[in-house]
């Protein structure tokens, strides 16, 4: 969790220096959401080229996974059906939760036992269904991706699945005003939302928001400084 108030005030301090400019909370909130999403999405590619070692705290790959793990979630989903505008109905359909971002794994919940569900492409599932040795069963099920959810094979016998997934970060929102010339946050206001990223991301959030803010206030100096800082952070994470 990163305090949105800290980020906002830091950004304002840098922007206001030498009266370069100012961004209002509404603009800041938009930029904050953009910065958070950019950093969050970057985790999934960064994990693949981050170096790994056997240390406790300097294993960069592990650190990235730790940042993703803040959003890992699990949910039991009952079977449903999906109808499209053309009138086709897809059965054995399990819709994603509303805060779904990326799918980790899925298991069939045949209480008390649970069985891993393997992902297959729509092309392969036809062959797999016709292969005597690979034909999916309730204990060896497979799924295909579908709009807004999964389709599990076999189409009968599995009423609930449990998915492990990464949820979307909540949209950050700073709410507050000025008192005696000072910017003051109203942290108790409904809708006030801090950044949900790992605390180590605070400086990168500041840099990214600054880069966007520099574009808004047309300050090439800010944009360049933010870009240089961003590059430095990226290098340090490899």
């Amino acid at each position, binding site marked *: 969790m990163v305090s949105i108030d800290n980020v906002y005030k830091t950004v304002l301090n840098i922007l206001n220096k030498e009266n370069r400019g100012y961004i209002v909370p509404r603009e800041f909130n938009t930029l904050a959401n953009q910065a958070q999403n950019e950093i969050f999405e970057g985790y999934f590619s960064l994990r693949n080229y981050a170096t790994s070692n056997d240390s406790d705290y300097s294993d960069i790959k592990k650190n990235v996974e730790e940042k993703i793990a803040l959003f890992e979630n699990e949910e039991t989903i009952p079977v449903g059906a999906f109808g499209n505008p053309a009138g086709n109905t897809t059965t054995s359909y399990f819709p994603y939760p509303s805060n779904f971002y990326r799918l980790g794994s899925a298991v069939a919940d045949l209480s008390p036992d649970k069985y*891993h569900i*393997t*992902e*297959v492409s729509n092309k392969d599932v036809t062959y*797999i269904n016709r*292969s*005597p*040795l*690979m034909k*999916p*069963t309730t*204990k*060896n099920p*497979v799924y295909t991706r579908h709009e807004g959810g999964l389709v599990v094979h076999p189409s009968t016998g599995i009423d609930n699945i449990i998915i492990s997934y990464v949820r979307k970060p909540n949209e950050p929102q700073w709410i507050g005003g000025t008192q005696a010339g000072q910017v003051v946050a109203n942290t108790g206001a409904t809708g006030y939302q801090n950044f949900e990223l790992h605390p180590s991301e605070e400086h990168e959030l500041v840099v990214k928001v600054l880069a966007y803010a520099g574009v808004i206030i047309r300050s090439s100096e800010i944009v360049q400084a933010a870009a240089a800082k961003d590059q430095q952070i990226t290098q340090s994470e490899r």
Partner: protein
Amino acid sequence: MAESRNIYTDQNYYAKFEGGTAPTDFKGLGYYSRTSLEDVINNFIIAYVGDDKVLTKIPEYEVAFWGQRAMQEFSYDILHSEKSLEVELGAALQVPLPQDYVNYVKVSVVGSDGVKRPLQPTTTTNNPKAFIQAGDGDYLYDSNGKPQEASESITATRFQDPTNPSNTSTVAQDYYYTNYNDDNFSYFNKRFGSNPENMTGKGSFFIDNANGVIYFDGTLGGGTNDSIIVLDYISDGIADNSDLSKVYIPKLAEEAMYSFMLYNLAKLRPATAQLSMMYKKEASAKMRNTKIRLSNYKSEEMVQVLRGKSKWIKH
């Protein structure tokens, strides 16, 4: 790290044998000597597949496929047949092949002493397709223009006919004593030049694979002691593959199965194809070891077999 593999208390384990009620998930006496194919597949995925391992990413259904292929191949070559079916011959002298039949190990007739006496398959007859013919020899056709087939060929019918001279049980001794009592038959009971496979005292059989039926000759059946047939056969071990937790392999073959799966999964992938020859050798060696293990040689039993044969056995 690992949980105990003794999954029952001793009392529950012996309950059924002692007349009580076995646990609902009871796997049977001697279950500890086997492991399930489901366990093998799960173990393989954890131990062999993943980041920084030889196989980085393999879908589970592919591992399950090669696990089942391993089970099939091992069933044919390495594992012992556990399938044995006793059948009483009916008047038709035919036995249908079991549903999970792949090949036979032995077909025997059971004597009054309960001992199985192997029957020899005959290669001199079969059950050919027989078209029904008119009096002039022309084939008769059905409404679709296809020749009509007889339900059974005359060849097989004659083979099974108990009145057929070759099926008539004539005791040679009686025949000789009746007809040649005064002659000097120095060769009596010395049957030079005979074909050993035909010298069995019992009958013979052939398998009609197209129709899935075993035909026995007319010397068997008829409600005598020679009516009880035992078919020892091999299956592929995965007839019940809808639930791999009920497909068992001996623990003595577990390591060979991992190697078989590793080799076959590695050879298909460009990243690991170079290593596949090494895995092939490893799989081959482990299969050989498994065969030896499952041959069930016990040194003391072997000594007993060879004792008194002027052989010096160290053990």
